[in-house]
């Protein structure tokens, strides 16, 4: 990734992150504010509901107390006490309830059984458990109607004055009409969830009416009624209401009505209980989250816009900065790559006065210095090579020249000898001269060969064949020198593109060197294997090994560790390997022995 791309990415990330953090903070804050507002509105409505509930409770208590103190009620109680016969009062509760405008009224006798019921006249004689409630306040109670349905009411109990054992239980119906009297904030939905209207099952029984049947029953969306009828999206209240019914506590949650966030509701369920703690009904207050969602979406849109603009700005900025900063660096990097590639004749523009300019100037100075030093080094090496060549030539030529000089001087001195002796000396001297001259030719031929290394003629060669050819050539000689010749090659082919003669010559050089390194015998090994996409040949011996310095200079021409070596063998090997785009290295552990490793590119199949 280029510096320009990095800068672009860095700027974009920085801008996007900053915008995201700001937007997230604003969104969280907005949500917090809206939720706080919703909670306040919900609390306000619940408070209003509780005041209305309390007000109605007081009205019910007052009405029932008033009825209990009435002359009519006292007369009924007196007659009941005297006759013990409740039958004449069957319809009394209906007329009294009508006069007092109560929805429910029951006269309960001393035995706790209903004497007369306004809401369910047929229930006379049945026990009324609520008569035992001692609370002076109103309470919630379910009531069964003659058609078998259940309604919820707000009830109060009061003994009839002068006849405490006879009680009145009166009340008002509690349903969604109560909600209609409450002030509702815009966007607020309120409802009451109860089992009002549901039929009484004989299996649950009349006695189960007052138990926690609402919580035990399955959720029924039709039971959730708003102020003006069925509450929209009532089925979506199920989880909230069932949770409130289960734990009996006020529960708050978010209701997803349509799958669109703007249609969701922030809802609260408030369970209302009877004196035994059974939940009789659940008040639901829901406030639309549309306003909050719209605000959040508006802010999110702004954030996207700002982020987009910021990223665009970052692109422009990064382009500008790269034009100022990264271009010199890129030019410098490109120049460095060229230098690394061997082209030292590069020049980086020097503009301005900044650090990059100093760096470019230093780079140009460095390349200039390097060029100068390389030329000096080349000249020094050339001189050194010539000196080495002259030394080697002098050394190589000096050895044959000295016998030549002696032989010639002997031949000159032998002119005074007898003819037979002269002939004998002459014959020996000419023989020696021929030998030494041949030796000189040989030396000259080697130098000539090194200078005239042929260009390789590449063809597809199996390395295993090359190794086998060398092994066949030198195994007998090696055996005579007590050297164990071992090869290790795989079953599969090891194809390379090579000149087989040059490769054979290089490998033969290494084998001869190894045999020379083991005058007392040893083990010579040649192995080959495939490594990645290259073929690796190893030639190892168990000789005395090489020092690190020898390893370092071993491939230098005319360097030799042998007494009569020319120092050109390994140089030729290295030349051959290099001509085949390969590498050669030598390893020599401290414990002795040496290993030459040739790596050549594998031919494509």
């Amino acid at each position, binding site marked *: 990734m280029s510096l320009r791309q990095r800068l672009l990415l860095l700027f974009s990330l920085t801008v996007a992150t900053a915008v995201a953090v700001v937007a997230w903070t604003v969104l969280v804050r907005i949500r917090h504010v809206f939720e706080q507002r919703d909670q306040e509105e919900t609390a306000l409505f619940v408070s209003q509901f509780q005041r209305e509930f309390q007000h109605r409770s007081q009205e019910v208590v007052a009405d029932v107390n008033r009825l209990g103190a009435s002359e009519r009620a006292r007369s009924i109680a007196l007659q009941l006490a005297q006759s013990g016969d409740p039958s004449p009062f069957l319809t009394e509760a209906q007329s009294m309830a009508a006069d007092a405008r109560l929805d429910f009224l029951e006269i309960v006798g001393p035995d706790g059984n209903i004497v007369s019921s306004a809401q369910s*006249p047929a*229930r006379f004689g049945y026990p009324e458990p609520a008569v035992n409630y001692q609370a002076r306040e109103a309470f919630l109670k379910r009531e069964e109607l003659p058609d*078998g349905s259940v309604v919820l009411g707000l009830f109060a109990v009061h003994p009839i004055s002068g006849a405490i054992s006879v009680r009145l239980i009166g009340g008002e119906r509690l349903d969604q009409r109560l909600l209609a009297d409450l002030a509702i904030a815009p966007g607020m939905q309120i409802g009451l969830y109860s089992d009002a209207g549901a039929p009484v099952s004989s299996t649950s029984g*009349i006695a189960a009416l007052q138990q926690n049947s609402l919580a035990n029953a399955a959720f029924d969306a039709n039971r959730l009624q708003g102020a003006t009828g069925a509450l929209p999206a009532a089925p979506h209240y199920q989880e909230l209401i069932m949770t409130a019914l289960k734990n009996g506590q006020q529960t708050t949650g978010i209701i997803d009505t349509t799958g669109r966030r703007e249609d969701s509701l922030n809802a609260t369920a408030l369970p209302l209980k009877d004196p035994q703690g059974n939940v009789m009904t659940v008040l639901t207050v829901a406030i639309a989250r549309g306003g909050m969602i719209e605000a959040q979406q508006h802010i999110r849109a702004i954030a996207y816009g700002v982020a987009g603009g910021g990223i665009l700005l970052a692109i422009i900025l990064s382009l500008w900065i790269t034009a100022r900063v990264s271009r010199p660096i890129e030019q410098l990097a490109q120049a460095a790559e060229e230098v690394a590639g061997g082209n030292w004749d590069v020049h980086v523009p020097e503009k301005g006065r900044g650090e990059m300019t100093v760096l470019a100037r230093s780079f140009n100075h460095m390349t200039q210095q390097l060029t100068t030093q390389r030329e000096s080094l080349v000249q020094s090496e050339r001189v050194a090579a010539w000196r080495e060549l002259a030394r080697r030539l002098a050394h190589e030529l000096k050895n044959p020249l000295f016998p030549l000089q002696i032989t010639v001087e002997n031949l000159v001195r032998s002119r005074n000898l007898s003819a037979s002796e002269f002939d004998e000396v002459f014959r020996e001297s000419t023989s020696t001269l021929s030998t030494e001259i041949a030796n000189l030719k040989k030396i000259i031929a080697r130098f000539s060969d090194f200078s005239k290394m042929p260009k390789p003629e590449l063809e597809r060669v199996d390395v295993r064949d090359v190794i086998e050819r060398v092994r066949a050539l030198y195994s007998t000689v090696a055996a005579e020198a007590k050297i164990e010749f071992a090869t290790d090659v795989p079953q599969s082919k090891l194809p390379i593109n090579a000149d087989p003669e040059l490769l054979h010559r290089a490998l033969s050089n290494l084998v001869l060197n190894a045999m020379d390194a083991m005058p007392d015998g040893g083990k010579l090994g040649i192995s080959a294997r495939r490594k990645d996409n290259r073929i690796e040949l190893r030639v190892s011996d168990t000789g005395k090994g090489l020092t690190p310095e020898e390893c370092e200079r071993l491939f230098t021409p005319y360097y030799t560790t042998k007494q009569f070596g020319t120092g050109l063998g390994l140089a030729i090997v290295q030349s051959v390997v290099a001509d085949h785009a390969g590498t050669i290295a030598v390893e020599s552990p401290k414990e002795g022995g040496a290993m030459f490793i040739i790596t050549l590119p594998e031919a494509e199949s």
Partner: protein
Amino acid sequence: MFRRSAISILLLALAATLPSYARTRPHFGGILRIETADDPWQGADAIARKFVFDGLTALDANGAVRPALAASWQSDNAGHRWQFRLRNGVRFHDGTPLTAASALQSLTASCGSNCPWSAVRVVGSSIIFTSDSPLPDLPDLLASDLFLISQPRSAISGSPAQPVGTGFFQVSQSSGNTVVLTANDSCWQGRPFLDQITITFHRTIRDQWLDLTLGRADIVEVPAEQRKQAEQQHLTVITSKPVSVLALQLSDSGTLASPNLRSAIAYAVDRSAVYNVIYQKQGQIAASLVPNTVSGYGFLFPVDRDVNKANQARGGLNTSTISLSAAGDGLMQLTAQRLALNLREAGFNVRIDAPGSAKYSDIMLRTLPVAGSEASGVLGRLLLAAGQQPAVSGQDPQFSFRSEQDILNQHLIIPLIDLPRAYAISGRVHNVTLRADGTPELADVSVEPTP
């Protein structure tokens, strides 16, 4: 002196007794005003039908069968064949003579395909009934309101067609909630004292009593449960013997096809609560179809509620919802509600159908006629009214008991309370008696002129 004084005293005493005699002696003429809650042509209290029509037979004041349009009858072949000879000289209100053919047409139209007899035909002035099974109580059955003889519709002229019968009174006007009946001068039983009867119906009991108190009505209804209240208001009340039985009529199909479930329902109902509170101890708790005062064996049928036996009979089955309806006013509805509570306590799911909302209910609360003096006849008329075939019983009480026991064991009819019928009458009405079915007998009634 003594003679003159004695004569004077005698004359004064005679003069003092004359007005009293004048008040009690029937007078021809006058209009009798009757108010009812129900339609006078429909239901068990269809009093207008009883004033306008006659049957082949009728019940006398004691409930015994007496000849009416049929002068005599005789049975052959062990009650399989009955021959009723029509009274001669009887004419319908429109002047057409009553013939055996017209009577036959009326009888056939009244019961359609559910007639108790298998075949009926006319032979001269006689009507001959034949049946596959013996009908020992056919004269009793023919005294039922169902078999009142009316002029066939096709023979009635004029528009709109008014009911035409042979009774004491004929329809002269029918509009809105009022029916005006005028005396049938040529009635085969003789002309009644009254000139006219005005029946105003669909009046609440409170309004009826108010009209009676204010002198705007002469005979008004007194529901059984309000008899004490009527007496407390110093109304003159005349009460019949038990003439109807409040009963549950159960379906023998659907949910209640199982006799055990029907038996459970019979055990579950609380008659005493209904009797003591709803009906204010009027009438008599009954578990028998025929009142004990008629049969003498009604007490043998247990009246007490037994929820345990109800549960045993139900066998722990959770039945589907049973529908219950009441054929009647608020009191019947209240009774139905109470019985529904009883049944729910016994483990039944009960739904009360609103009046007129359901054509068919599993249980129907209704009243069935039990007027009469013979158990077999009462039972036959009751079953006829219930839409069932009359049982073969005869005059033997043992047969009647077994027949009734067999019927009750099916639990298709569960008797609850025998109810009387009562009316409050004004002081200007004289000689009011009640028929065996509890309706007023107006043949001998006279009224004082309206002040």
